[in-house]
């Protein structure tokens, strides 16, 4: 039987990529530095943002979105957990967030003027908003709540909703080069909520945590997986007396410098061992 030859692979030289796609979304802050080696959030990428309750995942992401928006990008925050009143508290604390596009998935009626009109399903509203607006950066807060509320409305299986979400993210990655920051909770023992499928498909896993146990003042953000940048490099942040989130830029630079010193000391140690090895070979070879 003759089999038709199939070749789905391509050489890199055969693929043309628009160079603009390699220019990252850059807010011009220290947060950019942790996303990629060259700085900035890569286009068409999806990042999972995890951390224990209260570590300020939403605040951190919201403030980063506001910074990106100030830098000229079109940003959207999709809230499946917080309603308008919850968000108002945020706005009072962080007035810079008021200019952000926010999509509330809870209780969103198809005809806002008609109190009896049907509710949008969360996924319906989210994908509709995405289709009609070319966003650069979008944050979904949170994946677990989005899937749960969609499951409540549509009675689709959670697995099917998750699959559709993953497919849609890829679709919008390609359509508008949108990058997603997908917030997900972990338990107090750092266990991930939900399926592990997301862990594998995302570009990076961004983790926020307390430095010295729950509710300690010093917190940090780091990556346990990052296709474009360093992993395990910590960016520390804290809230000052006025409640303002302060990113410890000085410490980040200091840590980077220390990292280089550690590497350099390890390299020197390896050289010393190589020198000893050569010396043993020379002396024993001569004897």
């Amino acid at each position, binding site marked *: 039987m003759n089999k038709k030859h199939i070749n789905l692979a391509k050489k890199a030289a055969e693929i043309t990529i628009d160079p603009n796609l390699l220019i990252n979304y850059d807010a011009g802050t220290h947060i950019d530095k942790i996303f990629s080696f060259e700085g900035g959030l890569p286009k068409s990428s999806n990042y999972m943002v995890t951390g224990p309750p209260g570590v300020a995942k939403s605040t951190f992401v919201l403030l980063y979105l506001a910074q990106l928006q100030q830098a000229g990008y079109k940003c959207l925050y999709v809230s499946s957990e917080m309603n308008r009143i919850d968000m108002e508290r945020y706005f009072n604390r962080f007035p810079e967030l008021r200019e952000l596009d926010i999509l509330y998935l809870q209780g969103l009626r198809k005809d806002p003027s008609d109190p009896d009109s049907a509710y949008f399903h969360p996924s319906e509203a989210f994908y509709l908003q995405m289709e009609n607006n070319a966003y650069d950066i979008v944050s979904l807060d949170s994946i677990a709540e989005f899937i749960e509320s969609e499951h409540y409305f549509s009675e689709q299986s959670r697995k099917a909703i998750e699959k559709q979400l993953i497919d849609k993210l890829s679709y919008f990655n390609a359509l508008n080069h949108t990058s997603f920051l997908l917030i997900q909770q972990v338990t107090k023992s750092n266990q991930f909520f939900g399926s592990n499928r997301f862990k594998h498909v995302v570009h990076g896993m961004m983790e926020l945590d307390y430095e010295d146990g729950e509710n300690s003042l010093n917190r940090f953000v780091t990556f346990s997986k990052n296709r474009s940048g360093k992993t395990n490099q910590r960016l520390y942040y804290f809230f000052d007396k006025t409640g303002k989130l302060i990113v410890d830029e000085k*410490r980040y630079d200091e840590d980077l410098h220390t990292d280089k010193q550690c590497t350099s*000391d390890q390299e*020197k140690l390896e050289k010393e061992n190589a020198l000893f090895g050569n010396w043993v070979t020379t002396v024993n070879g001569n004897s």
Partner: protein
Amino acid sequence: MKTISHNKVMEFKSEAINKQPLRVKGTMSELDLVGYDQVELKGMGLKMTETAREHIWKILRIHKSMDKLLADTVGEKNRDAFINTIRKAKVTDGANNAKLLFLVDHQNQILKGVVKDEIQLLGNDTFFSLAEVIIDKYGLDVTGLSLGDEGQVNINAIHRNKFWEIGNLKDETFNGGVSISNDYQGGMQLSSFLNRLVCSNGLIATKFSDTFKMTKMSPKNVHQFYSSVKNLAARDFKPVGFSEKVIKAHHTSASLREMESASKFLTTLSGVRDSGLEKWVPLLATENRFREHGVRTGKLSAAKKKNARTGTTVWELVNGMTHFATHDNGIHLNQIKRDEIQIRAGELLCKDYDMNNMVESPF
């Protein structure tokens, strides 16, 4: 206390980098004990220093006293063979064949030390790059530099422009700084360095809360190291609780045991004994006073010596030791030994004094 010039510091730095032995990674199974002071490391014959020998014995958990006992019982050659057999037996069990760092002077073919892997011995160039940040940032003057045989380094530096007094005590004005060291015992360590102005006595305090030990270099540990110095600098390099300790030492008599211990320590490091040390630790005069009083101190148990009050305060004893360590008294003492005495004086200052246990009796 003179400041060491920048050029001298730079000369010392390059000497410390050049003289640091190679840090060779390996395990005890790669070390063969050939004789009393001879080993083979990864097939390479080396002489071994007493220090390296002590390190190996410690890792093999063989008590020092066994050395002499075995030599007396079975002869030196058999003792060495026996200990090598113990080494072989121990390393067959993986748990006893942990990772080690061998300190090798390859130019002179000498094994100078063996460090357990849990302590990361930094290269001296890395150590200096960390120490220089502190010295430059806080405008410290380097007043002491020491380099040990195994490549260990200590830098003492003070802040000359900040002085502080201790309560109402006369002549007790100090300025402080830091003592930073890199060695195989504790990795990189930060201690308080204190300069008593009236006689320029230096004291190294390793027991205050401001001290810091970094056994592994990491961004978090280095940050804590810098934070410790920052906290110390914010208090003009005056360790927390230092004044209280000095006042207490001023008002507490040293015990005979504490005095004997100080004297013995100075003798061990300097070789000077008895009357040669009286100027700093008046042990003979104290013993004479006890004898006149009908007490033969030589017959007292250690516990009784702890209860024997001397006419010297703990603070006088501390100052005697630091004076001995800091000044040129015509006694040959290298800087490493001077540092050790200053550390011991700091430990004496910080400990619970023997006389603190005395109870005022109503009877």
